[in-house]
Structure formats: structure tokens, C-alpha cells
């Protein structure tokens, strides 16, 4: 008996057929991977499953009965819970309150029984590896812990199906392990799990079955064990297996073009509690990776160089010119372009068009006496849309309507339009599909070959190693090691990080 089933579902939006006759079956106790490039229809399918969208054709069957969820609340009440990338809870309320929201235990006066709630919440959350005080506001917990609370809540409200949309993207390795433990437990209790992720390792570790979507169509469904990685990637991309094999998993070529005097020199960057004497040099044509675990200070270093993170001390020099107290405006003028980690919150302006987004940083250059020249902007926008192969219906399409990969390309186009000398990239391929990932990686190579200095942050070890000529490893806001030349390997990187972590134990 199938737990949740979708048969021949289609969903059409103006101009796009987001789902085209897709069928999908989830068995009880199954962990089912849902994969595809961005724009393949994964999110739409999830939204059909959870009642956000009503399908135009086809039907949804839940426990063998056709259902029509009018709203996400209906789906949740029926036992279908969704954990989104962004946590949908109330950050100012206590952890316990969030966990019991709407179902608080009452005392005999009909009031909320705070004591019992806290005790129960503590007990429940311990199983999820959350040991923080449940009376604290949820917002003060780390993102990973918040996600665990969301998961605990979903399971507590008697879910039969749990849908997880890239649940590990903000988790630390230790938290990922806890999550997998919880998934194992759900699995053994017969709860069906739909698991969306771009990370191959995770899929092969925990998923039983896989459904692959491409361009809104179903291209494959079956046991994951019967499908090797190469075949999976080629099915997702619709590319030839031999091409994937030849081009490798990442788009990097691994050649170094570094030459000459450093284009960027950061010396002894310090900021209370966050950065301690971080120094960094990047030569033209060089890609310098920043390695380390979450919270090691990689993003802070990047932001500090880009002028968006306050420094107590330290000097930043671009092509020989010292930057005074750095601000984003000054950094950009000096030739430092920063791509922030959180694309949606700090990168794109979703409500503006592709054109306005690309032109945002070059407005002064495309204007005279404060009046913008559409002709100049059009030229720049056209150049970069072609060069970065941005897939949009046109320059006037809203960026918020594009897929993640194309949003990222728009952001890169904005940075490149400023004609930077140094490019700071913080997780440039996070949350984007495999195809766009390879394109972005190839672009980074290309830009370095043209003489740009690049600083690359990536939590994908493979990407960091293949993309970087040199890797500087950080821990607790300080540089703890550097890999050069032939030493730039995944093993060496992990060893350095691990050695750094060991050092941590020695301190205590």
C-alpha cells in the first residue's frame, strides 16, 4: 500500500509547464530522494504534495484515497509535514513554546502548564541532540538546532509523511549525523520521508529510492542502489555519461595562472571574538580557497575584506593601494567585489528585474549627472546575460522568478560588471543545480585565467580543492594552516581541519 502517491500531475504557470504528467509514489518507511536541477519541478511537486498548489491535472492519493488539500494546514493536519530550508517557527518565543505551539499542555485551570511543557520539551529534544535550555527564545539557538526543533515538532504532530527540503544545507557535520539518526528512527517507525538534496553523499547514505525530475518531467524512478552516481548525474543533467565522465564532477580544470605581485593583501585582520590576525595574499590569476568548519571565520574574513564586517584592526591593500577603514562602497571602488553567502537575504533584489539587478552596482558608471543611460545598461546586461548564459525570459523578468542557479549568475554578473580586480566568493554554488554549478565553476576558472584574484569559500571539500590553487585553513577565526601545490588535496584539507580540531581538544 502506497502511503502517498501522485499520478499524472501537471501544473502550468504562465509561460511554463512546471510539472508535466509527473507520477511519484512514497511507500511507508521509505526514504525517497527527490532530485533534479533547479527548475526541474521539485519545489512545485512538493507544493502540490503539501497543498500550496492545486494541480491542474492528475491526482494526489494519500493512504490510497484521493485527496485535495486546500491549504498547507490541511495537509499538515492529515499528517504531511514539511521542513523547509528556512525554519518556519517563531524566533522570539521559547523553544518549548515553539515545539508545542497550538497544542500546549494545560493545567487544571485551563492555563498553559509551563513546567510540564518545559519538561516534556526537554525530554523530546534530547532525542534530537538538542540540549539547550528550552526556555530560551528559539532565535538564540544555532540554525541547526532550530531545524531540529522544527523536525521534532513535525514528527510530534503525528506525521505520516515528512518532506525535507535541503535539510542539511545549514547544518554542521555533527548535526547532520544527528539528523540522519532521526531519519533512521522515522524510517523504522514506518514514516515516509521525501528527501530533497543536492549532496550526493547524503543521498547514497540514507535514501532507499530516488525520483529524478528534469524540466518538469519524470525521467527516472526506482531504487537508488541500482543507480550509480555517474548515471544519476547524467539523468539529472540529461547529458551523456561519457561527457560527465570526461568533464568530471566539477567544472574546474585545475590549472594555475597565478603570477606577479599580490593584487590583494589582507594583513592581521582582527575583530573581537570573531577574527584573530587573519592574513591573506592573493596574486592576479590565483584562486585562494578558505577552508575550515562552519563558524571558523571564513565568511567573516570575506565580509571584512569586502568592507561589510567591522574590523578592530588590520590593513587591506588592493593592487598596492591601502584601503582606509573599509566600507562596501570603498571596497567596490578599489576593485573588490563580494558575493555574499546568503543569496536571497544579501544578494539579489528579488522584486527587481534581471536588468536592474545586474546594473545595481554600476549605476554611477552608466549615468551622467545622476541620469541613467538605458543604452549603456542594456549593453552591459546583454553582454553578461550572454556570457554567463543566464536563462530568463528576458532582461525584464523578475529575479525572484528565476531558478537558484540563474539568480546566482545574475549576482555574479552584477559583480563582474563593476570590473573588479578581486572577487570574493562565499559558497558560490550552494543550493544551485549540478548544471549551473559546473558553469559557475568553469567561470571562476575563466576569470582567474583573465587575471582576477579570487578568494573562494566552499563547504564542499571537492569544490574547494579542485577550484583552488592554494587553500588557507581557518579555525576559530585564526589561520591554522595552508595547503600549496601538490598538497591541495581533499585528504590534506580534511587532515588539516581535523588536526586543527584536535588542537582544540588539547586546549581544554
Amino acid at each position, binding site marked *: 500500500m502506497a502511503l502517498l502517491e501522485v499520478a499524472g500531475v501537471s501544473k502550468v504557470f504562465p509561460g511554463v509547464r512546471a510539472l508535466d504528467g509527473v507520477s511519484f509514489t512514497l511507500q511507508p518507511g521509505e526514504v525517497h530522494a527527490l532530485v533534479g536541477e533547479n527548475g526541474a519541478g521539485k519545489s512545485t511537486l512538493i507544493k502540490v504534495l503539501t497543498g500550496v498548489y492545486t494541480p491542474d491535472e492528475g491526482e494526489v492519493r494519500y493512504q490510497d484515497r484521493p485527496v485535495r488539500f486546500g491549504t498547507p494546514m490541511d495537509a499538515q493536519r492529515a499528517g504531511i509535514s514539511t521542513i523547509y530550508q528556512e525554519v518556519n517557527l517563531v524566533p522570539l518565543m521559547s523553544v518549548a513554546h515553539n515545539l508545542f505551539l497550538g497544542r500546549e499542555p494545560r493545567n487544571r485551570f485551563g492555563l498553559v502548564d509551563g513546567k510540564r511543557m518545559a519538561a516534556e520539551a526537554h525530554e523530546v529534544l534530547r532525542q534530537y541532540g538538542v540540549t539547550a535550555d528550552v526556555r530560551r527564545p528559539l532565535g538564540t539557538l544555532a540554525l541547526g538546532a532550530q531545524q531540529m526543533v522544527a523536525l521534532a515538532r513535525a514528527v510530534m504532530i503525528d506525521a505520516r509523511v515528512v518532506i525535507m527540503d535541503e535539510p542539511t544545507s545549514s547544518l554542521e557535520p555533527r548535526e547532520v549525523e544527528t539528523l540522519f539518526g532521526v531519519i533512521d528512527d522515522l524510517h523504522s517507525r514506518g514514516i515516509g520521508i521525501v528527501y530533497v538534496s543536492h549532496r550526493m553523499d547524503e543521498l547514497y547514505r540514507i535514501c532507499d529510492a530516488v525520483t529524478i525530475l528534469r524540466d518538469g518531467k519524470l525521467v527516472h524512478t526506482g531504487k537508488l542502489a541500482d543507480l550509480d552516481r555517474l548515471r544519476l548525474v547524467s539523468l539529472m543533467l540529461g547529458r551523456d555519461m561519457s561527457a560527465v565522465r570526461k568533464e568530471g564532477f566539477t567544472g574546474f580544470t585545475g590549472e594555475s595562472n597565478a603570477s606577479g605581485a599580490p593584487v590583494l593583501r589582507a594583513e592581521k585582520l582582527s575583530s573581537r571574538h570573531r577574527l584573530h590576525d587573519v592574513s591573506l595574499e592573493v596574486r592576479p590569476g590565483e584562486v585562494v580557497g578558505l577552508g575550515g568548519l562552519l563558524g571558523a571565520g571564513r565568511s567573516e574574513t570575506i565580509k571584512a575584506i569586502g568592507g561589510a564586517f567591522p574590523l578592530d584592526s588590520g590593513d587591506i591593500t588592493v593592487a598596492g593601494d591601502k584601503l582606509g577603514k573599509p566600507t562596501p562602497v570603498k571596497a567596490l571602488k578599489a576593485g573588490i567585489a563580494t558575493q555574499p553567502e546568503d543569496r536571497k537575504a544579501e544578494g539579489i*533584489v*528579488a522584486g527587481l528585474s534581471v536588468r*536592474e539587478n545586474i546594473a545595481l552596482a554600476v549605476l554611477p558608471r552608466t549615468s551622467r549627472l545622476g541620469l541613467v543611460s538605458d543604452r549603456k545598461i542594456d549593453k552591459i546586461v546583454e553582454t553578461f546575460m550572454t556570457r554567463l548564459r543566464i536563462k530568463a525570459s528576458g532582461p525584464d523578468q523578475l529575479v525572484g522568478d528565476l531558478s537558484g542557479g540563474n539568480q546566482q549568475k545574475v549576482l555574479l554578473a552584477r559583480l563582474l560588471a563593476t570590473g573588479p580586480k578581486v572577487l570574493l566568493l562565499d559558497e558560490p554554488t550552494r543550493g544551485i543545480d549540478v548544471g549551473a554549478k559546473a558553469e559557475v565553476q568553469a567561470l571562476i576558472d575563466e576569470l582567474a585565467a583573465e587575471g582576477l584574484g579570487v578568494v573562494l569559500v566552499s563547504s564542499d571539500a571537492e569544490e574547494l580543492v579542485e577550484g583552488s590553487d592554494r587553500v588557507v585553513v581557518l579555525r576559530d577565526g585564526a589561520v591554522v594552516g595552508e595547503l600549496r601545490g601538490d598538497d591541495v588535496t581533499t585528504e590534506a584539507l580534511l587532515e588539516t581541519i581535523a588536526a586543527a580540531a584536535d588542537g582544540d581538544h588539547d586546549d581544554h
Partner: protein
Amino acid sequence: MTTETLKPALDLTRLKAWLPKYGVYAAILVLIVYNIAFTPNFLTLGNLRIQLIQVAPIVIVALGMALVIGTEGIDLSVGSVMALAAALIPLYLGYGVVGAIAVSLLAGVAVGLVNGLLVARVGLQPIVATLALFVGGRGLALVISGGQLKDVRNDDLVFLGSGDLLGVPVLVWIAAALVLVVAFVVRRTVFGRRLLAIGGNRPAAQLAGVPVQRVLIGVYILCAVLASIAGLLAVARIQSSDASSVGLLIELSAITAVVVGGTPLTGGKVRVLGTVAGALLMQLVVATMIKHNLQPSTTEMVQAVIILVAVYAARERKSR
């Protein structure tokens, strides 16, 4: 409220996308057609003149409000700025009309600067920052005017307030010119594009090298200057200056015009023509009600319904 009866065949989703964009124009059209058919003396020159003269100050204030709302802000102090500008006119009229106008515009710049600094530098929420001057501004205006109504007799001011140019009131010419200026600023200038980017995503704009503080301060100054223009025009029209009544509650009319015109309160978008239409629509509703001898309370309730429909429509679009 009127569009459904206009095209009942339209399906709901299309209507929802259509409503925030063109609903206000359709509503105006319906009201005009209705008035031509059923309201005696609607299509007379005299009536149209009165309607336009009455709506002009609201349009001018609403233009500035639309810009502020476009940055995800709000400016409650516009009515007080009008009062302040009005109070300064009789005081400086001795230096000539140009001098008096310059002083009241400078007062606008000063208030806008304070608002802008509080919002952009200090980081106060716009509603709180401008609330301070909403209260304090009118107080200051009353102090300046000594709390008295002052007659203003000056031929040039009378021309501004009640004169005609090519058969159209000067007041309306000024409002129309300001509409064009603001539309131009939003569409064609670096300042306008930056303003929208800040409203759409402030951290992103900051990282893209947009001088966020400078732009925000500029927006609040522009809004206050527009309000002071409305204030001095009010003095010119009624030929007296009363700091306790000029611009009273106009912040609400202005916000209504902006919202009904389809500019979302969440920022990132400014609809200049929509704002003008929003002000016109509210004016027409009131005029229609009065012409048909309906109670002011009924008028207010109808206005409330229009605002709710506009906000609801905008919400639908936002969530898509």
C-alpha cells in the same frame, strides 16, 4: 469593489494579478461614468476645477510618501511639515514671496534631514522616527505662529493659490509638474533606482555599493520638501495661515492614495501614476457621496472598504 461588477466573466486568479495594477484606474472610470450618468452638474468646468484643486495637495504629499514607502519606510510627519511651512510664510513674507517660500522649503529640508538621520544613521524604525516630528513639528509650528490664525495678503501668493494659467488652476499645474518630476526621478535617475533597490533588499543594496544612508536621507528630505510645498500652497489658497489645521490628517490621506494606487508597503516598488490615481479615486468617492447627500460616516466606511480591497490585492500579488 467595482471591478468585479465590471467583468464578472474574469476568473479569480487573473483578476488578482490584474487588480493591484489597474484596479484603481478601472474604479475611477466606473465612478466617472456613474457620475456622468447620475450626478447633475458633474461634467461642469466648475466642478472639475474644485475636485482638482482639492486633490492637488494630497497628490503632492502622496508623491513624497510613495518614495518613502518605496524604501520600506513611512513618513508620519508630512502634515506637521505642512503646518510648519505654513506658519513660516507670514513670518518671512516681509522679505518677499521668494524669500518666504525659500524659508518654508528650507524648513522642509531640515525636518527631512532629521527624519533621514534618525532612520538611516540612528537606525530607528521609520514609524517611530517620524512620529517624533509628527508630534513635535506641529508643536513648533504653533509656537512660531503664536497659535493664531494669520491672514496672508500677497498678490503673488494669491496667484499661486487661486490663479489660472491657460484656463487651468496654477495649483494643478504645479501638482502635475511635480508628478512628472517624481516619475522622472524614479524612472530615470540613479537615485530612483537605488531607492528601489534599498526598498527591495537593503543588505543586498549595501553590499552592491549603494550609499544606503545617503539615499535614505535624500528620500526623507524629498518627502518633507514636497510636504512643505503642499503647506505653502495651502496658505496661498486660503490666504491665511493656521498652524493648527493645515495638513491635519493628511498623512493618512497620502498613505491611502499610495496604497490604493498599488504601491506595496513592503517596499521595492513605487507607482507614481498609481498614486495620483489613488488620490483621485478617494477624492471622487467623497465627491460622489457628498453630491448624493450621503452621510460622512458612510463615505468613511466606503473609503475603508477601498483601502482593504487595495491592501488585499497587494498581498495576493506579494505571495505569488
